[in-house]
């Protein structure tokens, strides 16, 4: 447990910074390179790094499997839900003008942020869940099990 002191301490320091950077990429996606996908991957990196250094159980204590699964679905729901909101207010599906009919350019910006938020949540969920699945895979199937 006491091994790799430097790794453990620097992981603790880095994890927060990585997450902060993920949010920067997320919310600056409309001004600078970045967006939901990149932000989601970066956010997932924080958890993957934590899991690599402290072990899968520790990572899953912070972010249990079922939360990750919900995240994957929640992001899709946010994305598709944005479309349904514009649909219900009488515009075409995913027409962001609906979000701020008075000022379409503000509506478009809000729409992009919402949709990219959905993408970010889902991508982070998928990446973390891929890591969980690989790191937590059961031992090889023995011949008798077939």
């Amino acid at each position, binding site marked *: 447990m006491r091994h790799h002191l430097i790794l453990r301490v620097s992981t603790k320091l880095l994890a927060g910074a990585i997450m902060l950077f993920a949010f920067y990429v997320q919310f600056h996606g409309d001004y600078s390179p970045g967006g939901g996908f990149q932000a989601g991957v970066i956010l997932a990196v924080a958890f993957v790094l934590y899991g690599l250094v402290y072990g899968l159980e520790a990572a899953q204590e912070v972010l249990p499997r079922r939360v990750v699964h919900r995240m994957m*679905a929640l992001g899709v729901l946010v994305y*598709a839900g944005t479309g349904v909101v514009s*649909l219900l207010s009488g515009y075409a*599906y995913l027409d962001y*003008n609906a979000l701020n009919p008075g000022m379409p350019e503000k509506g478009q910006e809000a729409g992009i942020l919402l949709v990219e938020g959905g993408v970010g949540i889902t991508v982070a969920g998928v990446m973390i869940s891929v890591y969980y699945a690989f790191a937590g895979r059961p031992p090889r199937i023995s011949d008798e099990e077939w």
Partner: protein
Amino acid sequence: MSVSDGGQVLTLAGHLPILPVVVPFMAAPLVVVLGARRLAWPIAFAASLSALAVSVALLLQVLEGGGVSYHIGGWAPPLGIEYRIDAASALMLVLISGLSTTVLPFARRSLAHELEARRHMLFYAAWLLCVSGLMGMVASGDAFNIFVFLEISSLSTYALVASGAGRDRRALTAAYDYLIMGTIGATFFVIGIGFLYAATGTLNMAELAVIIGENGTDRTIQTAFAFIVVGMGLKVAVYPLHLWLPGAYTHAPSVVSAFLAGTATKAAVYVLLRFMFTVFRPEYLFEVRALEVIMLPLALVAMFAASVIAIFQRNLKRMLAYSSIAQIGYILLGIGFLSQTGLAAAVIHLFNHGITKAALFMGVGALLLRADTPFHDRIVGLGRRMPLTGFAMVIAGLSLIGVPGTAGFVSKWLLVQAALEKGWWPFALAVVGSSLLAVIYVWRMIEVLYLQEPEEGGRAEAPLSMLVPLWTVTAATVYFGLATGLTLGAAQSAAEGLMSGFIPVAGEGGGG
């Protein structure tokens, strides 16, 4: 009025083209987010039912007033993504949502038997995604958007097939085979689309058709055509590219086989038809003779080879899977004739075979309640113990052969007519010959189910929740065999539309 533009306020009727895709697509993550096992089935069923209602409304609207176009996000095509519904796509939407709605009540008991309870929630989520993906493939008029929906439906299908692993570990290798082959198919398809985009600079299918029609074809576009046909051919399971299909249908849970056999390959055939006839135009197909030289021989090989293989199967589900490959041969034969009657035969066989095979796989699902495997020696005499299930399977089997009075007869009759119209009587004989092979394997099924003594006595009929969907689909095979007005009319108008290119949308002049 049916065209939506940015800023224009739409009524609910104006949103019809997007709803069959969005409703199941929203329901799938909702099932997972709520995370309640009890809610999964009701949500899935409600979403599927509303998608069906919308599709029927859409079909009526299209038959009355012609094609409908919907612009996603208010961005007008060819820049934005367009959904375009005509008679053929509306019919496919009804088939997909209709089968999903009929099979889902059946799934409840069948899954309780075939799949461990903790996986049910994710199963229904994958199911909804699959429905939404298939609907999107049919509804979309944008080549790249079709690829995205193809992937959505394919990926969820792999998960659905793999969910058979609780009962039979071979489902995992079957799903893996399907994943590899399906991914290669999708890759080929997207390479083809890439070439088309490079040559024309657009992804909108109507615009593509116009540009290809005006500028003619060059090497790039011909390569695109080849890649798209081969890629989609993999998803359709055209004969030498069919190897994923028997395993996937055999080891998937019965409800999945029933739904996929009726819809997944059919949606792929639809996309193939769309690209062949509306993007590339029939004149081009005449020119390259791709259909005569490649499609027709492969269709014939499928009809005979797959039927012969089906005869020798000892597993009922695998037998039905090989029979599906043979039936896809009929559809390709109809397309290969390159005539309006041939296309109508292909379209109507899409529908008729879809419901016939769904009924048979549901029958197998019911048999599996009383037998641990669908191997012939495990289901002997079950027709006597489960008379209603057995009888439904016999009727669906007759439709598979093409006995008059069943749906299968209508499509084969049309196919023979198309062959004779062209004066290609050997093809007409081939259709009859291949049907005779179908008689043999259907007879084997009847022999196993009825003519041998069951291992245990006593009536053991399937529960009502399975019999009602089974008989609904079986009755449909008889109904559409006798009352051919609706299907034949829709198939003929679809064939007409395909032979003449895109049907112009109301309120829009020409293409693009």
